[in-house]
């Protein structure tokens, strides 16, 4: 019994408390999922969480540090040799790349299509991998203060990793392309066939949905981002096609793909800032394309977070007749 100004109140029973907390939880969940009121609170809380993330990551850092300390001189020398070789090869290819870039821009100028500008990148350290169990997310040590924004694409040296889905002042969270809730529009690099790559929740597997049995896609094809939907810039590697299964009972092919990016190993990732799109709006997708092709993610909650689907000017010139919607059959 508690006495307040002569009124005697009974302390609330556990059941009452439980009912109160259930109501509070449901209210929070609805507000978090449906509205934007909680974004600010979440951003503020993410600042408080930073020390916790660092403390939690400390043991792994220490173990890595010790392992590094005991790496032999020989192994280091070998790795330097390897990197030197790699660097030389890349330099050679880069020489050609600059010439090709020039040529490409000249040709683009000739056909009157917008020139491509190199994307600016921002390096970010991965603080944590998969904070919520059975999701594919990473926490990055860069936030709004460093110029990160929602929907920004994240890549590593090998391809696209994912996109920023939660933003705090000093940290941010990226959902990976392998997350169950993630989808990314792609092109088959060989022929420009358009498709959508979905995550499966498994770190090494993606799936390509909605391609019919007569679609021209083969094992080993490279899938690059198409730039549709405006979240991801075009022409970054996304995945390589793996096993293709044609089940006659299903309307679509069952296609597995392996992500190009090394999702669980990279400790350093890059955030790309594509040059801001020109104001002239072009049609988002050709008529008849599946609706999902314009949606950057399949996650309903991300709709409010993804950037406006203004297609980049480079998209105005589709590759070839082969870039018909996946469901269309070739004549």
């Amino acid at each position, binding site marked *: 019994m508690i006495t307040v100004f002569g009124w005697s109140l009974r302390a609330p029973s*556990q*059941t009452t*408390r*439980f009912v109160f*907390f*259930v109501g*509070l*939880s*449901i*209210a*929070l*969940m609805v*507000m*978090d*999922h449906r509205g934007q009121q*909680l974004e600010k609170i*979440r951003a503020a*809380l*993410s600042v*408080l*969480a930073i020390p*916790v*993330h660092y*403390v*939690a*990551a400390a*043991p*792994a850092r220490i173990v890595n540090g010790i392992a590094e300390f005991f790496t032999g001189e020989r192994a280091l020398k070998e790795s330097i040799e390897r990197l030197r070789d790699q660097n030389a090869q890349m330099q050679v290819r880069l020489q050609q790349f600059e010439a090709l870039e020039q040529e490409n821009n000249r040709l683009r100028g000739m056909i009157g299509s917008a020139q491509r500008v190199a994307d600016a990148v921002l390096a970010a350290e991965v603080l*944590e*991998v*998969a*904070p*919520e*169990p*059975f*999701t594919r*997310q990473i*926490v990055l040590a860069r936030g709004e203060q460093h110029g990160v924004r929602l929907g920004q694409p994240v890549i590593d040296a090998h391809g696209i990793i994912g996109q920023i889905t*939660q933003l705090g002042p000093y940290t941010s*969270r990226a959902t990976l392309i392998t*997350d*169950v*809730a993630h989808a990314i529009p792609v092109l088959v690099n060989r022929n420009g066939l358009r498709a959508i790559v979905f995550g*499966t*929740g*498994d*770190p090494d597997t993606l799936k390509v949905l909605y391609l019919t049995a007569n679609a021209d896609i083969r094992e080993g094809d490279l899938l690059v981002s198409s730039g549709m939907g405006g979240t991801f810039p075009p022409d970054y590697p996304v995945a390589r096609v793996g096993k293709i299964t044609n089940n006659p009972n299903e309307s679509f092919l069952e296609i597995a793909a392996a992500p190009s990016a090394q999702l*669980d190993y990279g400790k350093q990732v890059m955030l790309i800032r594509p040059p801001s799109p020109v104001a002239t709006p072009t049609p988002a997708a050709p008529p008849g394309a599946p609706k999902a092709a314009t949606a950057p993610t*399949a*996650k*309903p*909650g991300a709709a409010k977070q993804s950037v406006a689907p203004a297609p980049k000017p480079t998209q105005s010139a589709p590759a070839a007749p082969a870039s018909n919607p996946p469901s269309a059959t070739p004549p």
Partner: protein
Amino acid sequence: MNLSSTARARIALAMTFVVALLLTIMPGPAWAEAFRPDWVGMVLIYWVMAAPQRVGVGTGWVLGFVLDVLQGAVLGSNALAKALIAFLTLKLHLKLRMFPRWQQAVAVLVLLLLNQLLVLWIRGFVGRAPETWVYWTPSIVGMLVWPWLFVVLRDLRRRHQIA
């Protein structure tokens, strides 16, 4: 002196929760993810069972909320699940104390599975439920870890006379 010992007991209690939270969000190799038990849930069950006057539904809710913030989950999802297992443990704490250790572990398994089921539902509503059976292994690992965790926490409780 008496006051400082209760203060110390309180700090010891809070520290177990902090350690559980750190163990839960500590980064590890990808393959180990499926085998990481719900440390927060288990420590919560222990304290509600052993010291129901101190730790209850409110503590569970706050812990779940902290977990939501740290994991970037839908705010309130883990909070609701943890409040639920705290409430159920509170209703059953006298029985749980009497159970032999293995039976206690089975009861903990049921509570942890309920917790996971609730979180799975909520994630399904929001549109990102995991589709693998491996999702349930943390609860089973939790059941196997329980007897050892119980002994460790009981020793801690006796040393600091938390009741």
